[in-house]
């Protein structure tokens, strides 16, 4: 089920609506350009790139959560035939600089994160040695022959425990405690309002650690041509230009010597945002050997070597008056960043949207970034927003129960109305526009909320009880501006860029640094470009992800690509179109104002006989022949565009669950998602993005969990056998509904859509379970929620009622 609902009529939107009616391609479900090559097996992922004389790299990793490295003996590995080169921490320190962080936590010191551990390792899986050999199997044999003497050190794997007095310190040289940094935002007088409130709810909410788990693991092929001084890197990344910058910093060579390309990327989800130790290692080996070196992360490595996501603990306080009007909100949260700062740093979005879609003027948030002996946590689809949504939306339902109110009515009472927007939240971010309430009502209607609410919670014939849970959200998509980012210490900008270049076949080459990570940017970019130019969709060919051919950009993350790129595409396409019209008109002997571009030709607006093919017009431009004297040869435009502000997507999800109160087993029988991403450039892509992210959100809500042993500090679920990622058969039925309120701050009114689905599932399911088990009085304060956690919640509820009865 998929339904696009018209936006409510508001004066400034009418013109937008009218404009979108004129669109030929924007708003249509053009089939994805990427599909043909992917479905035919013609994709080019990192492991598909092969070079003559290529060698393979394997990495030896610390098996302990925290250990001093006493000695490393590589002699037996070097004796093995076929082994070409071995690197240890000492060589890495001589030959490279520590990895840099793209998004440092403000106020945090720079930690010396070298590609190989120096005197000690601070997480299980941290690279300690690397070997290059004629085959991967042989390189792995060599790793087994390297003798490393470790002295295991006391470790800490819980973020709260890590901040306590006396916890083992991870980086005593740089930090006096395990608190990497803390920072906060506030507005109004939340403490005073809490003091005076009628009801105050406080709760600690835990969000589990998960892994983004792209189908293509990380990988890199490094080729060094010393004579050319060219290091060519093929890698699976979302940000080729940023990897180039970071590699230049770590390898201490100029960016001009490095070319980074990513063709097909089998999923990124935020995890492939920047340089990793193995990228530096493969480069160092390739430079030492002057032979191509490939490293493909295997799935077992992936669980330990690629950044994890989410883990955080939120201490929330929600205060309301007797009617349920929210009067203040505070959230002090601890994010677990693991053993080192990841290339993309710790999530900040929890601080931006912690007040959700609600009208609360008095609010404060504080983020603490804690270091623990676990794999670093990096960006992951949603990046702080699913976490805070779970905490807040579960509390909203808890407040409703406490006040004896309907959770839907409580949300209605507190939700920001269209006329309240733009609305500034404590972090200074501005919700741009939207009709939040409408999505709430649509979700409720879709699941027949009112009828359910009126009926008792009795078991069905199969013994299961039905429950419905809601979760409303606002999602920040894109970045406010480079100025905003600068204040937060970011080492990247907020813009996107494209180059359009005419070719002699009469088609247009579009170059972008955005790599193709499954987000369908090739299709969407071509749609917008063809729309503005007036040419056929097929006349635009997108070339992505190669730093040698694309203009400098930011990259594919933060639901920001299209928000910024839509503007760049328009800005590049307009002068391109105008010059095409001038040259075409000249060829036809008509005035440029009389000329139009259509399909593959320029023709007279009213006289179909006066036409010239684009191949002719473009050839004239390229040759500089047959063009007006005052025109320069060439037809190529580049534009960089920074949106004036971030756009905020929004929506509401409703989950219908059926739970067995005897065992805690439950199933999600329906999941309705009402969502607004502004103007949908391609509704089919939007639907795919929302569904894909929902599956990841449902996975994290229902079973995905990276658990570390409390005693040994070892990862317990580091394989596909133990990590319960949902597969197609495990995904509950999803129903999508959309509204379409154009954003006033972006070109064409788009809002980001790549991450949103990860946000609401956890809270919607928790709330549905609480509703189903209302007669038992269960509460949930942690994700994931498994049948066992439902059973435990039931036990706890029984014990507390028994306790109360006694």
């Amino acid at each position, binding site marked *: 089920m998929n339904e696009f609902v018209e936006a409510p009529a508001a004066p400034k939107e009418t013109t937008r609506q009218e404009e979108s009616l004129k669109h030929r391609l924007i708003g249509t479900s053009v089939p994805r350009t990427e599909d043909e090559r992917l479905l035919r097996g013609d994709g080019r992922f990192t492991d598909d790139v092969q070079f003559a004389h290529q060698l393979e790299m394997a990495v030896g990793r610390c098996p302990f959560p925290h250990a001093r490295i006493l000695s490393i003996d590589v002699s037996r590995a070097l004796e093995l035939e076929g082994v070409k080169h071995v690197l240890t921490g000492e060589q890495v320190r001589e030959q490279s600089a520590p990895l840099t962080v793209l998004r440092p936590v403000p106020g945090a010191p720079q930690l010396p994160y070298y590609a190989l551990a120096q005197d000690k390792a601070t997480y299980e899986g941290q690279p300690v040695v690397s070997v290059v050999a004629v*085959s991967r199997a042989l390189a*792995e*044999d060599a790793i087994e022959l390297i003798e490393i003497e470790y002295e295991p050190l006391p470790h800490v794997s819980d973020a709260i425990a890590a901040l306590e007095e006396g916890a083992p310190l991870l980086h005593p040289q740089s930090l006096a405690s395990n608190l990497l940094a803390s920072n906060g935002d506030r507005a109004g007088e939340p403490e005073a309002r809490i003091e005076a409130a009628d009801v105050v709810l406080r709760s600690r909410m835990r969000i589990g650690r998960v892994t983004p788990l792209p189908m293509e693991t990380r990988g890199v092929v490094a080729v060094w041509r010393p004579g050319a001084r060219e290091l060519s890197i093929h890698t699976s990344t979302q940000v080729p230009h940023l990897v180039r910058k970071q590699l230049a910093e770590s390898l201490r060579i100029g960016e001009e010597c490095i070319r980074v390309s990513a063709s097909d990327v089998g999923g990124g989800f935020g995890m492939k945002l920047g340089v990793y130790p193995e990228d530096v290692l493969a480069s160092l080996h390739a430079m030492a050997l002057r032979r191509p070196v490939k490293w493909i992360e295997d799935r*077992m490595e992936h669980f330990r070597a690629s950044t994890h996501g989410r883990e955080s603990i939120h201490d929330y306080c929600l205060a309301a008056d007797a009617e349920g009007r929210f009067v203040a909100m505070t959230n002090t949260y601890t994010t677990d960043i693991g053993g080192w700062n990841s290339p993309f740093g710790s999530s900040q979005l929890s601080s931006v949207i912690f007040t959700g879609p609600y009208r609360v003027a008095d609010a404060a948030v504080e983020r603490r970034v804690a270091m623990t002996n676990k794999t670093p946590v990096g960006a992951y689809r949603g990046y702080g927003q699913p976490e805070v949504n779970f905490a807040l939306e579960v509390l909203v339902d808890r407040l409703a129960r406490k006040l004896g109110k309907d959770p839907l009515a409580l949300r209605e009472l507190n939700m920001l109305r269209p006329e309240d927007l733009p609305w500034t939240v404590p972090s200074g971010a501005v919700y741009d526009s939207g009709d939040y309430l409408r999505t709430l009502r649509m979700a409720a209607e879709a699941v027949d909320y009112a009828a359910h609410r009126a009926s008792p919670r009795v078991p069905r014939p199969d013994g299961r009880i039905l429950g419905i849970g809601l979760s409303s959200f606002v999602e920040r998509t894109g970045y406010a501006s480079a100025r905003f980012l600068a204040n937060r210490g970011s080492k990247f900008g907020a813009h996107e860029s494209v180059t359009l270049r005419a070719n002699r076949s009469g088609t247009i080459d579009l170059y972008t640094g955005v790599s193709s990570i499954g987000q369908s940017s090739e299709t969407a970019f071509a749609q917008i470009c063809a729309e503005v130019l007036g040419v056929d969709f097929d006349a635009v060919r997108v070339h992505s992800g190669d730093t040698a051919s694309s203009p400098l950009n930011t990259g594919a993350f933060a639901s920001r690509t299209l928000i910024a790129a839509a503007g760049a595409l328009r800005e590049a396409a307009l002068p391109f179109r105008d010059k095409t019209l001038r040259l075409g008109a000249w060829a036809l002997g008509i005035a440029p104002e009389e000329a139009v571009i259509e399909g593959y030709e320029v023709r007279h607006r009213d006289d179909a006989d006066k036409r010239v093919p684009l191949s002719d017009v473009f050839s004239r431009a390229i040759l500089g022949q047959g063009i007006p004297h005052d025109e320069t040869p060439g037809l190529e435009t580049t534009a960089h565009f920074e949106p004036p502000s971030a756009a905020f997507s929004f929506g509401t999800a409703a989950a219908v669950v059926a739970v067995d109160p005897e*065992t805690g087993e439950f199933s999600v029988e329906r999941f309705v998602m009402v969502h607004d991403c502004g103007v949908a450039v391609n509704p089919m892509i939007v639907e795919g993005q929302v569904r894909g992210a929902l599956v990841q959100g449902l996975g994290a809500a229902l079973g995905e969990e990276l658990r570390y042993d409390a005693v040994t500090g070892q990862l317990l679920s580091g394989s596909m056998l133990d990590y319960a990622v*949902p597969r197609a058969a495990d995904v509950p039925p999803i129903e999508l509904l959309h509204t379409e309120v154009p954003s006033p701050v972006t070109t064409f009114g788009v809002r980001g859509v790549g991450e949103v689905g990860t946000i609401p599932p956890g809270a919607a399911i928790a709330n549905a379970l609480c509703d189903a088990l209302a007669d038992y009085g269960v509460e949930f304060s942690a994700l994931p929620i*498994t049948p066992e956690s439902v*059973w*435990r919640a039931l036990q706890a509820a029984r014990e507390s009622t028994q306790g109360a009865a006694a």
Partner: protein
Amino acid sequence: MKAADFLYHRAGSVAEAVTLLDEYAGEARLLAGGQSLMPMLNMRLWRLGALIDVNQVPGLDGIEAEGEGDLEETRIGALTRYVSLERSEVVASRLPLLAEMVRHIGDRQVRNRGTLGGSLVQGDPTAEMPLGCLVLGARVRVESGRGSREIAMGEFYDGSYAAALEFDEMVTEIRFPRHPSHFAFSELTRRHGDFCVLSVAVTGECDSDGCWHDLRIGLGGVSDMPVPAEAASARLSGTRLTDDDIREAAALTVEDIDPPSDMRATAEYRTHLVPVHVRRALQQLRARASATELLTRTRENR
């Protein structure tokens, strides 16, 4: 995740395979479907001198029905793939419990390759086939250079992942006696086709007067091997499987288990679930039997 070097042999006969096993004196393993063996080699959890591929050995993958009535016996070759069990009419009619259980294993790819013999020897305590074979009273035929022997499923394991085989022995065939008249199966998994949190298989006979006997209750995933719940079975013998009988019998099952705590569930939760799932499986057994009886009576009346 690339296996270390090993030698590869392709055996042409059972005799050749067991001779090679003997020569490698414990350093070699048979390769059947490879669905457990290959991951272990690739993850370097195991380093072997040699693999002896038995996929080309003729005659190891048949399903044969023999005898009638009480003498009925079904023989399944060790190399028979899960997919063949799924599609076999013989298995559907003569071993319906096995036919139902096999569909819970892994995914299509795994069932296309994995074999009955491989699953039994692998001995995963949560696996479906060892539990099904236990409840159905199967016997495992084993060959070596020293001759052949048969091991009852109840004695096939020394512990988890530990089949009671000598290093030079190979499983060639699994023999099933006549299938009980009634059966039911229930399992809890985290995901479709995942290894189970726990599983319960029950079978039994019901007299025309409604009294039950020969009940067998098997439990998977709650000990280091599939276990029979003997006290519970005994409690039910001669009863009519009333709700009270079932509840009391189900409560006895916790005596037979020693559940692990792992990523899938804690021991505490498994301990809570076992009697519930046993109770529900027995209720299903009873319901199925009365449905069959009703069907027979309707036919007779016609």
